[in-house]
């Protein structure tokens, strides 16, 4: 090949993109490719056994499970009852966003409970004698 790939690389790749990649590329990016991608052919060494190990390593080191991904995924707020319309300052309600209130019981009550618990923890941490349950303004705030 007369003109090498390196000579035709994009501007942000720098003058020696491959050297940079090989020496300092993000390990997660490398492992993602060398463990999970690339041509899989049966070597003489028991690669099938290894596959299981590789998968274990991969999951442990860099890739979350499907459940974890769902839990932390891009649409998590869609299902978070604490993010219903009434919990948002009115001027920042994005138009066209469907308000999810299909979780049955009152989401505000749930959030209130969570916040009270966190408040209690915070107060305990800073040594405040008041308990969260005895504080009436919290409830007013939510109504």
């Amino acid at each position, binding site marked *: *090949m007369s003109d090498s*790939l390196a000579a035709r*690389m*994009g*501007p*942000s*790749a720098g003058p020696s*993109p*491959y050297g940079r*990649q*090989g*020496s300092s*590329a*993000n*390990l*997660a*990016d*490398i*492992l993602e*490719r*060398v*463990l*999970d*991608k*690339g*041509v899989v*052919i049966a*070597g*003489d*060494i028991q*690669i099938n*056994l*290894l596959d299981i*190990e*590789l998968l274990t*390593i991969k*999951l442990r*080191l*860099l*890739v*979350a499970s499907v459940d974890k*991904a769902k839990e*932390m995924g*891009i*649409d*998590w*707020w869609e299902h978070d009852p604490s*993010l219903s319309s009434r919990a*948002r*300052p009115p001027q*920042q309600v994005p138009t066209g966003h469907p308000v999810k209130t299909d979780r049955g019981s009152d989401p505000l009550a749930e959030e209130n409970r969570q*916040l009270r618990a*966190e*408040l209690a923890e*915070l107060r305990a941490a800073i040594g*405040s004698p008041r308990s*969260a349950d005895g*504080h009436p303004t*919290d409830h007013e*705030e939510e109504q």
Partner: protein
Amino acid sequence: MTSHLQGAASPGQPRRLSTEQRESDHSWSSYVYAIGRAGTDLDAIAPRLTGLRDGRVRTVAADGLAALVSSVPAGAFSAEGMKAQLENLTELEQIARTHHTVVEAAHTGATVLPMRLATVYLDDARVRAMLRERGAEFDALLSRLEGHAELGVKVYADPRAAAADPPPAAEGPDRAAPPVSPGRAYLQQRRAQRQTQRDAYRAAGALADEVRGRATGLARDRVTHRPQQGELAAGAGENIANEAYLVPVDRLREFHRALAGLADGLPGVRIEVTGPWAPYSFATPPAESRSA
């Protein structure tokens, strides 16, 4: 066995056996990094590369194809030996980086199919047999990947960055409001945090869609990776989209330009483009690959 080979190789005087010595010795196995076409620049590149355990890289050819191979200690690269090595993150990193460095170097001068990590044969004869057996498949893949490179594109949502750099006119009332009780202040703060978070995630989601749209138009193929969320995920914020694109090398510049600046003015949202990589994510046989 493993340890004395390692020990001999590490201090001042590296133990470098000649190719002939390693090939004829049954205590060595043949580790395959990548496959390309025989008679290309691969033959020139190989001798300049150092593989695992300081082994010299060579080409092993059959039926017009060439594998980039180096000899590795058979014990350390047996199923048990490899398992032990790969369970250790330091050793895994070393193997992965060495494997990757050889593949990348080959990719600069030739079209190659990167092998999955830890593809090991008993000797070079077995490598040749594999090349003959799978020749047609490799040939088709090489034709498909010729003149292409892989670019990785990740989109991150970083609510903390958004909070540090709030958009104008947001959260204004808090400053002007009269002093509030600790509980009220806390709840207001929580509310603002959640709002900022939700905005960052929503903006990142929308950006990921736009990136996908633009990038797909310039790429020959696309593969979706799982978002990086484990302990090795290095980027600040949360990775919400992680994709790889197979891009013609004469379009790499255009690809970068198309994505540049898309995240500007979006606090808490970031695009990261990595590569060019050897086409790891597109090296699976067509039968198993995604329909284009």
